[in-house]
């Protein structure tokens, strides 16, 4: 799943920004963590949700209509 690998990479980059800001709490790292880092993290989680919802819908469509609860 390419999308999930991208999501995982985005999460790692976002986490790196956040950890950097905690190790070196100066203006640039703190601002980057609170903007870019969180944007990456949010985008990554959005991609994850999109992939999971898409998978669930596919599974749902595979089940014949009479077997759906």
């Amino acid at each position, binding site marked *: 799943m390419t999308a999930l690998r991208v*999501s995982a990479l985005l*999460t790692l980059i976002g986490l790196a920004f956040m950890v950097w800001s*905690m190790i070196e*709490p100066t203006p640039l790292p703190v601002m980057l963590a*609170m903007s870019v*880092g969180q944007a990456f993290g949010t985008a990554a989680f959005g991609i*994850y949700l999109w992939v999971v919802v898409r998978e669930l819908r596919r599974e749902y469509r595979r089940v014949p209509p009479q077997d759906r609860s």
Partner: protein
Amino acid sequence: MASWIIANPLIAAAIGCAGGSAILLLWYLLRRPALSHATKLVLLAAIGVLPLATATTGNVAGFEATKARRFCGSCHVMTPYQNDSEDPHSPALAARHARNALFGEDNCYACHADYGMFGTIVTKAGGMRHIYEYVFHYHDMSLEEARRTIHIRKPFQNATCMHCHSTEGPSWNAIKEHASLLDRVRGGEVSCASVGCHGPAHPFSKLEDVR
């Protein structure tokens, strides 16, 4: 650095969550397991729960870090202000407050914060503007030029002083200048930090004729 992280439980928790998330993500990226229900749950923790915990605790730690004097002093144009605050012999108003344990390491924030209903948000928004101004206008400025160029944006509010010095106490009112100017001080007509009263908080930053 390790002792500093251990001494801050929020930072330790944030770094712990980030580490846990990174381990799970590296496992997923290197092992490339099938997208089973178990894998989805692991990824929910690695991409959702643990990073959210890191961001939440990291934000709180970040907001606390922005209150510290060393944070303000990390922009070079603020170095003289930081040095003066840390000088145990400085007679400046800012330095005298920094020597008070109630202000201590957070003395810049304590005096420059907005104490209104949305004060924290207003203060942080102002801080964002400071970063913008520094990056785009003052980054390469010499300290001498910065001393002449950079000024407080709005006149210092007496309300900030009155956050601690209420003007209600008998010892405060026992000073005849305080008593005679009580209404004008409360109304902001006479600044506590004016030259005839307590003087500017950072006298070295003022032009020669104001000292």
